[in-house]
């Protein structure tokens, strides 16, 4: 079908493009350019002195190296898990695939930020494991083991447990793309084993793998919440966070942020452009009518057992958070001695938690409104209009995936210093903006799918019957993509409620704390702070679970696509 005149941009389109451009300039281009300027300008002249300073500073270089190592480890381990699980699910006759498929996705609802609270209680000096060992007489109560002495691996484990489903979804999608007959053809030609995998499977799986890997890598590389809870300061995000706590403007902070940004941007560009043209529509999962490896019964039992242990381990952190939130007294014993629901009540009465919930609901609702307006405009133009340079819009919509939350929040704090939007005075507007920017890729993708699905012909029918453009949107398009709109809104809301980096950095006063910042601050308080924080974390997990289940119902199997680049 040739493009028609209705696909040509009109005045409304250009107005929308202008509004979108203004939003991007304000929310992304300005803070990023501000940081770049600060990093490269010394006394008004172009200079690399801050970078020299940065790389000659041992703590800073160590932090960058640690962050890279962290990201490499997390990506490598999740890739190994993702490949194994995807292979088991798509190329073997493993039993109960439906059940496993759901269990593998469960960790998506378990933010590592919340899990970290539990890990501290389980693996802490006076935690569950040590108590268990002491009870069993294996450990001297006077010299408990410091399991968290290697916070690096604690962070790796928590992030792996949270992120492997994203890797699994992406690889699974690629597996579904590889027609089993291609595999069979290669076998017929004599390719086998490693050679078959290297020459046939790997090139076909690569785009999906890199899509997942780039998300996971950037996530692990720039995660602030988890290392912060582990008090693991020698990683780049925590250094960025700390540089903002200093009273004096720390100019090295800019160069560090720019280095981090450059790395994520390069990675994003590689994953986007190296494989950009290779995306094909994904057929339904589980279409595996080809070569299926028959597993013997003993092997099946072994695999199921291993998977069960794996899944059980993956929820240990969060189960322990739940235990903390329900424990009245828990010290030097395996399980709490007394139980209570009291802390869930306190969540809504304690001033800090109560105010933070109110704040988060307000910020997140406003962010959903902003991101829906922007998302509808962008997705509509991408799906319905054709003009030169449209790809710029596409890239912009996905750019927040490449600009980490820590970096953006840092840019906001510095760039808007002394303006009406200064987060030191009132962080609400910038929190709303940052929440909406972060959710934009997800919302655009969900809505774009909806617009494509609805097809243009119904809109044309309505127009020919006399409906003006906006009426067509209101009476035909929106009702038909209601599921996508709702699904996107629910996900955007839930993720905003639990947004970590921006919240920790931008909110600086009690009365503006969102939930995650309140959890972080409560954890640092003696007394019942930790229990209330745990109860809040569990409520957050419940919210996220409800949101994902509802969104899955609304969006169907397209859900998986939302977590890809």
């Amino acid at each position: 079908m040739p493009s028609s005149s209705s696909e040509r941009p009109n005045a409304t389109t250009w107005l929308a493009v202008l509004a979108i451009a203004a939003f991007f300039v304000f929310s992304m281009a300005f803070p990023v350019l501000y940081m770049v300027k600060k990093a490269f300008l010394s006394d008004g002249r172009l200079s690399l002195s801050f970078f020299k300073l940065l790389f000659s500073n041992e703590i800073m270089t160590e932090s960058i190296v640690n962050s890279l190592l962290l990201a490499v480890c997390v990506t490598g381990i999740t890739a190994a898990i993702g490949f194994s699980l995807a292979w088991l699910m798509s190329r073997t006759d493993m039993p109960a695939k439906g059940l496993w498929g759901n269990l593998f996705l469960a960790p998506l609802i378990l933010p590592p930020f919340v899990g970290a609270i539990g890990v501290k209680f389980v693996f802490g000096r006076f935690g569950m494991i040590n108590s268990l060992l002491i009870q069993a007489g294996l450990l001297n109560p006077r010299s408990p083991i410091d399991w968290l002495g290697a916070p690096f691996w604690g962070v790796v484990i928590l992030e792996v447990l949270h992120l492997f489903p994203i890797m699994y979804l992406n690889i699974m999608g690629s597996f579904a793309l590889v027609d089993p007959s291609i595999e069979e053809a290669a076998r017929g030609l004599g390719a086998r084993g490693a050679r078959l995998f290297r020459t046939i499977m790997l090139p076909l799986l690569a785009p999906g793998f890199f899509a997942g890997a780039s998300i996971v890598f950037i996530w692990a590389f720039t995660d602030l919440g988890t290392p912060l809870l582990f008090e693991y300061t020698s990683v780049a995000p925590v250094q960025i966070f700390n540089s903002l706590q200093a009273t004096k403007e720390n100019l090295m902070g800019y160069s560090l942020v720019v280095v981090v940004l450059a790395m994520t941007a390069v990675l994003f560009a590689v994953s986007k452009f190296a494989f950009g043209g290779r995306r094909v529509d994904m057929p339904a999962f589980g279409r595996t009518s080809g070569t299926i490896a028959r597993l013997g019964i003993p092997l099946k039992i072994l695999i199921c057992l291993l998977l069960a242990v794996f899944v059980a381990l993956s929820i240990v952190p969060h189960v322990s958070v739940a235990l903390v939130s329900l424990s009245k007294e828990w010290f030097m014993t395996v399980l709490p001695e007394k139980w209570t629901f009291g802390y869930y009540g306190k969540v809504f009465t304690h001033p800090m938690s109560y105010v933070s919930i109110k704040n988060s609901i307000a910020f997140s609702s406003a962010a959903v409104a902003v991101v829906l307006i922007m998302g509808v405009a962008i997705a509509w133009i991408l799906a319905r209009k054709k003009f030169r340079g449209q790809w710029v819009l596409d890239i912009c919509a996905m750019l927040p995936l490449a600009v980490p939350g820590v970096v953006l929040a840092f840019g906001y704090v510095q760039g808007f210093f002394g303006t009406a939007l200064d987060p030191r005075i009132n962080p609400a507007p910038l929190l709303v903006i940052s929440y909406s920017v972060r959710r934009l890729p997800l919302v655009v993708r969900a809505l774009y799918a909806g617009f494509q699905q609805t097809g243009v012909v119904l809109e044309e029918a309505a127009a020919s019957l006399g409906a003006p453009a906006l009426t067509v949107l209101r009476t035909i398009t929106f009702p038909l993509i209601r599921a996508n709109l709702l699904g996107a809104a629910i996900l955007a809301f839930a993720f905003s409620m639990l947004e970590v980096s921006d919240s920790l950095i931008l909110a600086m006063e009690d009365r503006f704390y969102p939930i995650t910042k309140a959890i972080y601050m409560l954890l640092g308080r003696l007394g019942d702070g930790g229990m209330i924080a745990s109860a809040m974390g569990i409520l957050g997990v419940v919210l996220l679970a409800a949101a994902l289940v509802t969104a899955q119902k609304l969006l169907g199997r397209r859900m998986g696509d939302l977590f890809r680049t």
Partner: protein
Amino acid sequence: MVSVELKNITKKYGGTTAVDDVSLEIGRGELFFLLGPSGCGKTTILRMVAGFVTPDSGEVLFDARDVSKIPPHGRNVGMVFQTYALFPHMTVEQNIGYGLRFRKIESSEKKKRVVELLDRTRLTGLGGRLPSQLSGGQQQRVALARALVIQPDVLLLDEPLSNLDTRLRVEMREEIRRIHNEFGVTALYVTHDQEEALSLAHRVAIMRDGVIVQSGAPSDIYMRPRNEFVARFVGDSNILPAKAARRDGRPGLETPAGWLPSSSGPPRNGTVFVSVRPENVSLCQPIPGAANAKISSVTFLGSAIKAELALEDGTAITALFPGTANGVLWKSGDIVGVRLEVDDAVVLE
């Protein structure tokens, strides 16, 4: 109701010209067909009348009023889409009533019109259903009713029957004829199905590669195709080489299958081509000295019998005759005489 006129319309997409300097006029109340193979530009023309496509040059006139700048929703055009494009989230009644929302009509009158349309398209009782609960034919009727309820100045039909099975297609053809007669609206109908065009159209334009090759009444086009494309696209045709000749003092053309009278006088020098419909080729016992042929195959088609023949010089020719008992007389391998029963040769350009 208006008359529609296209004046020197051209539309290009990148390097390809979809519509090339096309002009045509559709009279008030006329049922006008655009017939052609896919990709010939007929749908682009329809979409230009609807306003979904803007011509690069030329004018679209409704009653001599230029509508080129008016957007689709301002044109008062009813359109029936190939896929019907019924709104899946609305009932039949809501679908039909949709266009009335944008017209200043009292709500009681709106209701009356919807009920009337349901009745006139034989959908009474189905008003509360959703499109997914209707058969293909019923969906088609809803699409028609929805386009007609707004009392459009022009009705546009884009391959409306192509999604129906053969029997239903013939039935709906009659339904469209009846409804068009009843409403008497100016209509532009796009199809690649020549039977649909020949049986329904007041006038037909045959299109190829963005150009109108020939237009006129269906019988004219069938009887006197202008060139080989039309002759072959509209019905079956034998294309035979011919040379000017005289027989009994009358001008005509000599073909491998025999002599044809020609009223247009002796043609230009050299060889021309003529079109002879298979039903104008009749078979008889071999005649010495005349055109004889060998039957290569006989196909029984029910109401007719089709015979493929090879003339003595090797030229292939098709004959079609009523499927009466004596028709089965011939079988493949037989040598027969061939007679062209044509009053006036159709010389192709």
